[in-house]
């Protein structure tokens, strides 16, 4: 599964994109998995209220299913316009 990071999430993780092998069934499960990897993940995911997520390029909740998902993206609240 491709995992993408944007803005300060990208800066904390250190890469814009990585491929992760996971059996996580929800976004929250994936986050829990990533947080155990390294400190930089813990730093990026410490406050989930400051994060937004998209599954296959659609905005989603943290309890969204990853069944069949090919791409998950984490980022701060958007500031378009």
């Amino acid at each position, binding site marked *: 599964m491709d995992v993408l990071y944007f803005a300060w999430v990208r800066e904390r993780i250190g890469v814009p994109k990585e491929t992760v092998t996971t059996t996580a069934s929800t976004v929250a499960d994936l986050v829990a998995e990533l947080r155990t990897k390294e400190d930089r993940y813990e730093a990026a995911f410490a406050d989930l209220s400051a994060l937004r997520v998209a599954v296959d390029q659609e905005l989603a909740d943290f309890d969204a299913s990853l069944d069949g998902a090919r791409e998950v993206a984490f980022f701060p609240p*958007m500031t378009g316009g």
Partner: protein
Amino acid sequence: MRVSVQKARFDLGHEAQAFAADRTDMGAIVTFTGIVRDVAGGLAEMEIEHYPAMTQKAIEEIAQEAKDRWSLGDVLVIHRYGMLQAGEMIMMVATASRHRKDAFEAAEFLMDYLKSRAPFWKKETTETGSGWVAARDEDESALDRWAKSD
């Protein structure tokens, strides 16, 4: 309906005139233009990051929802990414309708959604450092008025 996510500058004058040209069926045209504002400390530059695989689709969905909710003859959204200087135009929307109420409401709806739901992030660099622009609570709460009751 036209949605353009682009790095290049655009010409508001050219875009507005082209959008309005020969709309003999539409009496009202509203445009909104967002400009890089200078900030305390002196803005050196603003970098806009986006999520290429998602941006175009997300904006097209927002524009289509505007067309579904209001009686619109046409909708235009242009949004830039990349490095911008103070005074440069970041983005614009334009809406055309028979009566002004639809054009105004649809333009405000589009802006409220673009602010909080289109995958863009802004980083400002000033003489004293750089930082990501925080989302404003009032931008998030601005969406409430468009919540559907059904």
